């Protein structure tokens, strides 16, 4: 079973994604801010199969978390999907260049679409 690590400061949103993933047979871990997420990633024993990362978050933004993940040898292999509502087109290229595997706009993708995208990402990774 795949584990998805959801890093999202909005609790309603993270709960909604958590539900969608559980119902699609994923195991789910959740963190509400970037700094906590990074610490948990570094200390947890079984690493998640994929990370869903929000951009605008307190304490540590998504971009810094992504950079830290990609610089950490124990974490950099984990695919990271950016999940945001930011409409800045240039963001897409920036995050992909930093090593993100996908850039998903929340509002343009139904919960089901997000799960499908992640499932596809994992099949590709395997």
């Amino acid at each position, binding site marked *: 079973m795949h584990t998805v690590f959801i890093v999202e400061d*909005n609790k*309603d*949103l993270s709960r*909604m*994604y958590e*539900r*969608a993933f559980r*119902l699609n047979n994923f195991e789910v871990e959740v963190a509400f801010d970037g700094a906590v997420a990074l610490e948990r990633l570094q200390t947890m024993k079984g690493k998640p199969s994929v990370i869903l990362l929000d951009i*605008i978050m307190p304490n540590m933004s998504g971009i810094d978390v992504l950079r830290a993940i990609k610089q950490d040898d124990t974490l950099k292999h984990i695919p990271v999907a950016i999940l945001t*509502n*930011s*409409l*800045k*087109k*240039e963001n897409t290229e920036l995050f992909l260049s930093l090593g993100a595997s996908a850039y998903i706009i*929340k*509002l343009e993708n*139904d*919960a*089901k679409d997000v799960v499908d995208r992640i499932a596809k990402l994992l099949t590709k990774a395997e």
Partner: protein
Amino acid sequence: MFVRTKQHPKNQVRVEPIIMNTPHKVLVRQIKKFLGASIVISPEWEKLLEAISTTYFNFDADRTLTERSMDLSSKELIEINRGIEEKVKTRTKEFQQEHARLLASVSSFPLGLLLFDPDNTIILRNENVASILEIATPYYTATDIVLRFPKETDITENCRLCVTEKRSIELKDISIGKKFVRVLISPIFLNMHTKEDVLGYTFLIEDVTEQKILERSKEEFFSIASHELRTPLTVIRGNASILQHFYMDKIADAEVREMIGDMLTSSERLIRMVNDFLDMSRLEQKSSNIIAEAFDLTQIISEAAKELQELAAKKNLELRFDVPKEALPTVMADKDHVMQVLINLIANAINYTHEGSIVISVKSFSTFLKVLITDTGTGISPQNQALLFRKFQQAGNSRLVRDVTGTGLGLYISKLIIEEMGGVIALEESIVGKGSTFSFTLPLAVQSPTI
């Protein structure tokens, strides 16, 4: 000998010509009395009398004339003087009134106004100048004004340009302390039409701080809308969709299932609306992410047609793209935005067509390509044609609906997009009951050389 006529409205002096050959009657009588009536009037006497008479006449005439004119001129002078005094008084009063009126009107508008002569000396000012520019003394000079502006604005140079090049100069969004001002420098011509003789220039200062704040809060509003509104909408739609995908079979009550369906449809509609509003505001503020690149337009049209094939099929309509036989040159535009316009126009056509077809074609011109979307739909009446491409054209009157998302912004957004990319969007033709043809143009990536 002479005629002297002096014209004056009230007094008129007129001296009749002197008849020289008539002896002076009184003089003759006096001589006769003195010398005795018996004296024979001889031709010599007559000549003498004549000469004496003429001299006397002339003397008398001159005297009368002098007396009269002396008398008259002093009277006249007094009169004229009084007139002048009156006039000066009236004119002074008029001038004062005019000046007061001018100052009042100049002070009443919420702008700072300065009038300069060509040598940069202030000849007129209103109170707003000092208050807008936060100058403490009312006796400021041109230098004080210049010093209030940031160096890079180069007020002095701009004033010089205004006078030498005889044109108005507008300086926008200059920051002065905590304020933002707009300045308009315009030459004053003696004759507006010939534009000769620059008498100086007007210097208008407008405090645009409030406007800037409003503008900024509008931008902030949309950035809030883009993030804060989008997040809860995602949650509502997401949960409704989870309910529909995973819990429908667990819900026995058909009405509850219907409620979930309605929630999902409405949230999707609301999301489309929020997206339309955001699109519009970003396009209006020219802050949208339109990035032009060269691409093959036919490929994008095929994709759009493919995406909407299902929608057309549901209504038993034929949706066809007449691909040109010859390869078309690439266009310079933003792919995603062109796709958005295509989807909008084709979906509109499907929406307004009950039977028949929707045909997309492309025409090639020397500097641009033109895409035509022709339907066999309901058509648009001439009075409604005028309302197309306007903001919220649907809002006032639901009969005008020509919009898929239902915000009344679809065509307006398409227009903003196409114009931003240097093209033109239009309704080519529409006949009520027969159908409509919409078109838009896009510039070619490589402009073919004109011969």
